[in-house]
């Protein structure tokens, strides 16, 4: 399973982008993959709060991609370590 995370916003207003295969993520087992498969597609209906982050998570498996959008604070608790791990190896646009 391939995962791409894009973080936008924050006071810096820069875009941080990272991607990896879940197999390469330490501690990301079957539970994490289940969480990623269950992500709702589409985005939050409301604009985010000023200077908070916005996340875009794209999961690709067996040639099919699905993208979910979250405002900071709405990110599912179980996914936070994964998002952080992917962004830690990310680069700025």
């Amino acid at each position, binding site marked *: 399973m391939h995962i791409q995370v894009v973080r936008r916003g924050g006071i810096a207003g820069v875009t941080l982008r990272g991607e990896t295969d879940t197999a390469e993520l330490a501690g990301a087992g079957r539970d994490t993959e289940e969480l990623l498969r269950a992500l709702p597609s589409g985005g939050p209906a409301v*604009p985010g*709060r*000023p200077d908070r982050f916005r996340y875009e998570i794209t999961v690709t498996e067996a040639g099919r991609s699905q993208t979910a959008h979250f405002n900071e604070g709405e990110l599912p608790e179980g996914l936070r370590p994964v998002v952080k791990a992917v962004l830690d190896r990310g680069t700025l646009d």
Partner: protein
Amino acid sequence: MTTRHPLHCIVPPGLLDRLARASDEAVRNAALDTLALDRRFRLTRAESAARTGGFLARPVTFARTGGQPNRTIHDQQHSESQTPGVVVRSEGQPPVSDSAVNQAYDGLGATYDYYWSIFQRDSLDGQGLPLVGCVHFGTAYDNAFYDGAGHMFFGDGDGQMLTQTTAGIDVIGHELTHGVTQHEANLTYSGQSGALNESVSDVFGIQVKQRVLGLDVTQSDWLIGADIVGPELQPALRSMAAPGTANPHDDQPADMDHYVPGGDVHTNSGIPNHAFFVVATTLGGHAWDAAGPIWYATVCDPALHPGASFAQFAKLTLKHAQRDYGQGSSEATAVRAGWDAVKVPL
């Protein structure tokens, strides 16, 4: 007097709906007008309630004279909880050993003092709202934000993108100004209104910094976040003098020819940011002599609606420049020059 007051109208809306379908054209038009007005009032009422958290008026619990902030600094101890942590410094207490605590305390004070001294505004809500600063939010957290309820959270940065965010007086002024905007125009945080919301925060954030350092418009570098950037974002987050040039990742446009459709609110804010820079530097002196007050009057103008476009905002700045300084004043001319420079039509 024939003035109607549809706010609490005695004519039931059902009757108006029937009249709106009447065959007589005059009756039909009058009913349609009244219905439209009524909807506008309902919208305004709902919008106004949203700004103040559902309360139309705050009960007066004690008489405030204003002029003194009420600050409390909390240590989040690297938690991402948005409940304020341990109290580490309260109003009137001496500095402590943690520089983040003292910077937050001083920055909140400088912002309060700016709004009080220049506009006699008593804190973010104009009613003495206590200012709560929460330092050491999260681990290596590359951000600072205002939560909409009097609390400002500061990350320590990861040392690469951002460093200790409390070090930026302009950053603190920027965040607290989100609170002022929320209580006034409540600009919707997306599209052009979102970019205006961001720009207003930069416009007043830079003035708070200029005022603390005693800088006039020629002495200021007009950089936002210069004191909180790490090596990746050197030398600053944004440049009001030259949007798009603040760091290698800066994608801000400087005029409408380069507006980014669907762009982040921090991207297109470069356009109104640069307009303010041109107005302030055309006038000379301190940014808060005239340019700041014109922008402040615009943000507080009930005619500025939450979904305002750049052009609607620009027209209101001209209205206030003309009303407060005169039709042919140098202030009005400078405002025209500012919006002309960024190609926003007046």
